[in-house]
């Protein structure tokens, strides 16, 4: 069974694969996996209005292959940081400053933490396994991943780095991550998703759930620079308690196809979320992003910003949704999406939407997608700058307000480097 292709698999094949690989897991986890395995064949691939998946032949994936074993060794983590390295979702190394482990911070492989009641309680709460075929596959076959738990009221900012890498011949990877930030603690997480350059066609499914308890704050930053052969389905969701804060900073640059979203559930009064997405598509990349803010409670605020650049024949869709439920009085939800197109063949859609069921709120959205201002290019070239240099300056100016606002300095620099590489590519 080790080399079976998905479209040749029966439900029984899937279930016996789950038993073979995960039979040793706690009963609750195994039961969930089996119920997901039962659902795989009955569910469709994700249906995305502007991102057809049919031609991608996702069901030809060598799903049953066990991911290759890790080969890398980890470099030293930055001073004071906790860092976890993963190859093909399997933990290679964890480094944890003693001060943090003494205070009860846990950072480890999620599979190794299945005995923790918090994992049973929260895993799959925000990202279920019945949404579509990929969600079910992930529910049945996920492995490795990261579990981070920060206890309540840690006095200093806990800084965590996740370095996730897929090697060649990975095939299909399903990862789950769970982050729990205890009350009144403050965590920054920087996630780097990358692959080997020559990686074969790979389905990368990455689900991250973030629980922010009362008065807690999570600054979650991610940068994705996978090879063009990767087809990524990256879902992230957070649930916020009273006065909790969740700030997303997402930089999307790699992968031939990426379907990525991040969702904030403002569950309790006073919760706040902000989200910044920077994306840059080139070649024939297809990028489908969405960001969602759900105001379930009064006096919650959300602010969503996205800026993208499309060159060559790249194609992007950015869908923003701000939903304010009845009773969420005094809430404030905003979103703004802007895309710049560097060529006539590039295409970008920005689709903002607001759903407001409460009168006493503030909500606003704005969206634009347009080509580079040719008058500005002419102006700059008339002073002696070459056309590529003029475009580079214009792209810089377009992205600077959002990139420079990224709260995680090391991520900010990496995002600028990625932009620079894409401009010159």
């Amino acid at each position, binding site marked *: 069974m080790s080399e079976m292709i998905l479209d040749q698999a029966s439900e029984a094949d899937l279930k016996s694969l789950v038993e073979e690989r995960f039979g040793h897991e706690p009963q609750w986890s195994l039961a969930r996996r089996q119920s997901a395995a039962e659902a795989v064949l009955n569910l469709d691939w994700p249906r995305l209005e502007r991102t057809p998946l049919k031609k991608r032949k996702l069901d030809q994936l060598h799903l049953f292959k066990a991911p290759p074993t890790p080969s890398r060794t980890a470099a030293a983590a930055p001073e004071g940081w906790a860092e976890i390295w993963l190859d093909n979702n399997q933990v290679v190394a964890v480094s944890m400053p003693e001060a943090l482990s003494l205070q009860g911070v846990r950072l480890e492989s999620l599979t190794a933490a299945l005995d923790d009641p918090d994992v049973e309680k929260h895993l799959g709460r925000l990202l279920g396994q019945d949404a579509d075929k990929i969600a079910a596959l992930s529910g049945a076959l996920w492995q490795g991943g990261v579990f981070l738990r920060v206890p309540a009221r840690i006095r200093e900012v806990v800084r965590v780095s996740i370095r996730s890498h897929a090697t060649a011949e990975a095939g299909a990877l399903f990862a789950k991550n769970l982050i729990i930030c205890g009350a009144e603690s403050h965590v920054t997480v920087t996630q780097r998703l990358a692959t080997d350059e020559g990686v074969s066609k790979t389905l990368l499914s990455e689900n991250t759930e973030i629980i922010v308890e009362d008065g807690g704050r999570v600054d979650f930053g991610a940068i994705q620079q996978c090879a063009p052969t990767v087809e990524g389905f990256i879902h992230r969701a957070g649930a916020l308690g009273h006065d909790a804060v969740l700030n997303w900073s997402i930089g999307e640059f790699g992968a031939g196809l990426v379907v990525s979203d991040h969702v904030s559930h403002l569950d309790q009064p006073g919760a706040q979320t902000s989200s910044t997405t920077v994306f840059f598509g080139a070649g024939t990349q297809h990028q489908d992003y969405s960001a969602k803010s759900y105001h379930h409670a009064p006096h919650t605020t959300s602010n969503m910003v996205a800026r993208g650049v499309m060159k060559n024949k790249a194609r992007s869709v950015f869908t923003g949704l701000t939903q304010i439920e009845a009773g969420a009085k005094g809430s404030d939800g905003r979103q703004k999406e802007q895309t710049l197109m560097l060529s006539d063949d590039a295409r970008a859609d920005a689709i903002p939407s607001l759903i407001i069921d409460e009168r006493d709120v503030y909500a606003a959205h704005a969206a634009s997608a347009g080509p580079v201002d040719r008058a500005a290019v002419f102006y700059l070239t008339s*002073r002696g700058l070459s056309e590529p240099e003029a475009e580079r*300056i214009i792209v810089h100016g377009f992205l600077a307000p959002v990139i420079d606002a990224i709260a995680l300095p090391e991520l900010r620099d990496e995002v600028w480097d990625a932009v620079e590489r894409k401009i010159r590519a």
Partner: protein
Amino acid sequence: MSTPVLEISDLHMRIEEKQILKGLTLTIKGGEIHAVMGPNGTGKTSLAQCLMGHPRYQITGGSVRLDGEDMLTMKPDERARHGLFLAMQYPSEISGVTTANFLRAAINARREDGTSISLKAFRDQLDEVMGFLDMDPKFANRYLNEGFSGGEKKRNEILQMLMLKPRIAILDEIDSGLDIDAIKVVSKGVNSLKGPDFGSLIITHYQRILDYVHPDFVHIMVDGTIVKSGGPELALELDKKGYEWVRTELAQSTHQA
């Protein structure tokens, strides 16, 4: 460096199907200031942009040479590096690059030997020119033209001209929308470059700026061509008689000729 010569010869140009320039001939040499005046919509701005190489214009005949070199085959940045400069009527706002960083990049782009100007030499020069133009030094660190008033943008064009030291400068309605004090400053900038190594083409709708920058030659442009040329006195005559006189009398006489 030798005295520059810009020769525009029988230039024909159109945008899509519309013929804009219909055989325009004009030669500008170092040491000379030429003024091209004319009613609105006669092709003055198109002439300026076309000389700088704006891609929207299609040349259908004639030639433009700077020191004998064909400008029409060059892109705008190449023309700039050959010493051509255009102060634009509506300069673009460029976010994300400060005026100072932009100017430094532009100066470096024009250096033939590939070396860069030192930061200190650049800063000293910038401070001096900004002082000369009564510009607040903080403009240097603001994004290029972003949020600038009309007058500030025009002053910024002159600042760029003085920093880049072109051989031939085309000033497209540099005076429009300016108050007298601003016109004086702009004119001071142009006059400071006057000399055998610098020639200028001032395109204007109004006579006012010519009180401060004294032209050696005045040309009247109507309907895509120059209909009358003369000395500074022509501007005064035009001021007195108005553009109606140009349209009726001059345009007619050329058509008959």
